C-alpha cells in the first residue's frame, strides 16, 4: 500500500474522476469524483468539488460534496466541508467548518468510537427533519445534550402511578439514578 499513493501537488488540477485501489493525497484541485479504496488526504489548500469516497478520510482543505468513509473521517483544523459526512467514526476538530448532514455508523455499531460519536449514532432520525440547518461543528453538540434529557424525562411517568405510598423513596432513588445517568 505504501507505494500505491497518488499525490496531486499544489498546482495540479484534475478535471475528471479519480478512482482506484490506492491512497490519494490532494494538495491541488480536483473537479470530479474521488472514489478509492485506500485513504484520502486533502491537504490545506486542496479543493475537491465533488463526492469523496475512501477508507479513512483526513480533510484539511475544502470539499464541496459528500464525504463517505468506510472506516473513518477526520475533519481537521482548516477543513471546510459543504456536504454530507458519513462514516462509522467521525471526528470534527476545533477549527473545522461543516455544513451538511452527519451520520456515524448505522445501528450504533461504532466500535467504541469516541463517546461523542457513539452517542450520536442514535441521533440522526430527529435531525433528518432539519438537515439543512446544520451550520458547523457546534451544532453537533446540541443533540448530544438534548438526547439524554429526553431519556431522563420519559421513564418516570409510568413508574409513579404504580407505587403510591412507597413511591417516594423509589422516586427519589429513580430521580437520583436518573441524575447520575445524565452525567
Amino acid at each position, binding site marked *: 500500500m505504501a507505494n500505491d499513493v497518488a*499525490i496531486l*501537488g499544489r498546482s*495540479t488540477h484534475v478535471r475528471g474522476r479519480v478512482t482506484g485501489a*490506492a491512497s490519494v493525497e490532494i494538495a*491541488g484541485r480536483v473537479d*470530479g469524483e474521488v472514489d478509492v479504496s485506500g485513504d484520502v488526504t486533502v491537504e490545506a489548500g486542496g479543493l475537491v468539488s465533488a463526492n469523496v469516497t475512501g477508507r479513512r478520510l483526513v480533510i484539511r482543505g475544502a470539499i464541496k460534496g459528500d464525504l463517505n468513509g468506510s472506516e473513518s473521517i477526520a475533519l481537521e483544523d482548516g477543513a471546510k466541508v459543504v456536504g454530507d459526512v458519513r462514516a462509522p467514526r467521525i471526528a470534527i476538530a476545533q477549527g473545522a467548518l461543516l455544513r451538511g448532514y452527519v451520520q456515524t455508523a448505522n445501528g450504533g455499531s461504532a466500535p467504541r468510537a469516541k463517546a461523542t460519536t457513539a452517542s450520536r449514532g442514535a441521533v440522526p432520525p430527529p435531525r433528518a427533519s432539519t438537515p439543512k440547518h446544520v451550520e458547523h461543528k457546534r451544532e453537533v453538540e446540541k443533540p448530544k445534550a438534548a438526547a439524554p434529557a429526553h431519556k431522563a424525562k420519559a421513564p418516570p411517568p409510568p413508574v409513579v402511578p404504580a407505587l403510591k405510598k412507597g413511591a417516594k423513596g423509589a422516586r427519589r432513588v429513580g430521580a437520583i439514578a436518573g441524575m447520575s445517568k445524565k452525567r
Partner: protein
Amino acid sequence: MASTVIGAGITIDGEITTDEDVVVEGTIRGKLTAKDSVSIEAGAVVEADVIGGPLTVAGTVTGNITSSDRVDLQGGAKVIGNVKATRITIADGAQFKGNVDMDV
C-alpha cells in the same frame, strides 16, 4: 521527488493540468498537461495526449506526445501516437508506432 504522483492502482478519467513534475505509475485517460518534466513509468497506462517539458516514457502511451524539450522512449516503452519534440531518443526495445516531428 516529484510533487505530483499518479501511483499504481490509481485511475484518472479526465484532464490533468499542472505546473509541477509528474510521475505516472497508474492509469490516465483523457489529457495530461504539465509545464515541467513528465515521467511515465513502466506499468503505467496513459490513454491520453501528453504535453509537457522533458518527457520520459517507460510505460504504455496511446496518444500524441508533445514536449517543449526532449522525449526519451526507454526500453519497454510502448507508444502509439505522434511525437513532437526538439529532441527524441528511442532506446533499444522500445515499441513505437507513429510520426516523429522534430522541427527540422
